[in-house]
């Protein structure tokens, strides 16, 4: 009997929500910003990057006076689904979420769609063919990051290189991320896209450093042993590997950032410290601070505007010169 009542209530509730949504959709009066309620289902706090991401989502909501219901799934899909359903039950205006895994989101996304609640994917995508289940994906474009790294090199090498080094052959070594991971594949491709048409920039060695400091150092040591003074530029798929490689270059007796120009991606705090010390030339941002863009999208939705299916994060390129100034702003 109790079960039956529960179901009855649930169905009644769903019907009510639907009519409610239809009504709000019919009325031309857009909601006031202060009335918006946003639910956000976060993955958890598995890395410093993620912690900064969470911080950005929460603080930006406060700043804009948007009511945020935040849930931390502690890296468990079931928790995230539970959070998602509770957001639907509370009839929030928009649901934002970073899926912990790619698959298994069909049913719960359909529930949100039926309840008329738009879903914004943040940072990660889901493995569903029906693209109408979400409004947009906000996150980084790894290929673009690689391209920016390459573009910076081509535009700035003349300026930053050691005066006695030549321009007609520039030897580049590359530290790749974990073999097969999306950021490694895309940063590899993007960098080569940017170098296409500049035959003087040659990638002479490429090897995986598995995104870690220790491996970055070990691989760079080997690069230096085999190619030594020939190396003009190091391109690293993340800051940690670059920081490990800097140690190797110093041990080899070369000056990182001067004898060997170093380009990396991520823009974490450690990279800014290295840049302030003159040991890293540039880092391309892969920003976790998605809060502002997320709420821009939310507000646009509430105003009834259509927003693009893919929103690429605003990301900067931070050369050495701005490091000192930027360092205190680094949250992660």
């Amino acid at each position, binding site marked *: 009997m109790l079960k039956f009542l529960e179901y009855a209530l649930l169905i009644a509730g769903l019907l009510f929500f639907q009519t409610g949504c239809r009504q709000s959709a019919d009325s031309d009066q857009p909601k006031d910003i202060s009335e918006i309620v946003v639910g956000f289902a976060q993955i958890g706090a598995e890395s410093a990057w993620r*912690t900064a991401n969470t911080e950005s989502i929460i603080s930006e909501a406060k700043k804009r006076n948007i009511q945020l219901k935040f849930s931390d799934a502690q890296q468990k899909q079931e928790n995230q689904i539970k959070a998602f359903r509770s957001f639907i039950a509370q009839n929030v205006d928009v649901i934002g979420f970073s899926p912990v895994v790619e698959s298994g989101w069909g049913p719960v996304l359909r529930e949100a769609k039926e309840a008329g609640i738009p879903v914004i994917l943040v940072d990660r995508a889901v493995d569903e063919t029906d693209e109408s289940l979400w409004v947009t994906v906000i996150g980084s474009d790894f290929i673009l990051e690689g391209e920016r790294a390459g573009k910076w090199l081509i535009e700035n090498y003349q300026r930053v290189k050691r005066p006695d080094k030549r321009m007609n052959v520039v030897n580049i070594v590359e530290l790749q991320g974990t*073999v097969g991971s999306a950021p490694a594949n895309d940063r590899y491709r993007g960098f080569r896209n940017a170098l296409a048409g500049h035959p003087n920039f040659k990638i002479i060695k490429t*090897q*995986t450093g598995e995104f870690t400091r220790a491996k970055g150092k*070990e*691989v760079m040591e080997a*690069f230096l042993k*085999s190619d030594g003074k020939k190396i003009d530029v190091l391109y690293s798929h993340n800051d940690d590997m670059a920081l490990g490689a800097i140690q190797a270059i110093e041990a080899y007796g070369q000056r990182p950032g001067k004898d060997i120009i170093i380009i990396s991606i991520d823009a974490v705090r450690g990279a800014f410290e290295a840049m302030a010390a003159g040991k890293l030339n540039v880092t391309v941002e892969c920003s976790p601070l998605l809060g502002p863009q997320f709420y821009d999208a939310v507000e646009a939705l509430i105003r009834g505007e259509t927003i693009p299916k893919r929103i690429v994060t605003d990301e900067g390129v931070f050369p050495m010169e701005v490091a000192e100034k930027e360092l205190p702003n680094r949250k992660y």
Partner: protein
Amino acid sequence: MRKIISNEEFKRVLGPLAAFLLIMMFNMFFTPGFFNMQIKNGHLFGSFVDIFNRGAPVMIVAIGMTLVYATGGIDLSVGSIMAISGAVAAYMIRPDYTKGVIEYGTLPPLFAVILIPLLVAGLLGLWNGILVAYLKIQPIIATLILMVAGRGIAQLITQGQIITFEYPEFQFLGSGFLLGLPVSVILVIVMLVLVNFLTRKTALGIFIESVGSNPTASFYLGINSRVIKLFSYLFCGICAGLAGLIVTADIKGADANNCGLWYELDAIASVIIGGTVWGGRFTLFGTLLGAIIIQSITTTILSRGVAPEQILVFKAIVVMAVTLVQSSNMRKMIVDSVFVANRKTDKTVNKGLN
């Protein structure tokens, strides 16, 4: 040679030695600059030194693993213990880093930064030992517990972040040089001499081997197998702790996710390539050779520029070739007559005396 390494042991390490020389010869002919040695800032510098320098953590872990393996056990948790020990050290140096504080506070004294993580590692080893020796849990399961949980503990300590630090005296442990040699290599030598003394100049070595090869007979001989096993896991834990400190000091940061990752496999492979028998006679020199072989494969791959997606296959092929070279049956098949004369097995008892 006779004094440090017994004849019988020398014969046993012939296989891995041959394999190592093969890899070196390959490099001599096909990898230009591999044997280039220089003196830079007063210390040795070159790919050859890199092998020993990068291989040092695995070598130290493998020394501990050798003893465990000889008692008929296995320790899967060494990689996680490394991560914990590194995390503890980094946390002591920079306790507020995870809260976003950039300042250091007062630096703890160097001996504390080294001894406390080692103590923690020893306790974890003791935990493994109690599970195996006193609660009779299968070693592979008993140490699997800490292998899985340990990395989580390390991540808890670092709050999932990489705690970076600057502490020159401590960094010396990982990237310093002493008498022209990397400090990590000197630590390997110290550990080797210490363990060799303990096991070959006292009866401990024989106790370990006899507990491993025949627990019942050892029991009737009056050997306390539980204490021997407990000791081996405890010691293995301390070795892993030391290796963790080296890795952490080397990169000036505690990376709980990656510090010591898969080291258990490298250490076990080193022990087996070296020719130690599971539950039975062990050879420390063989183990070190095993570790050097594994590292020289890695260094060879890196200096030859093998494509990243081919590394694992390349490694597998070399490891297979190496194990074939030193498999006694395989050798017997190839050069039967040479090795048959050497296969004497009745020298166990004499070994502790020479």
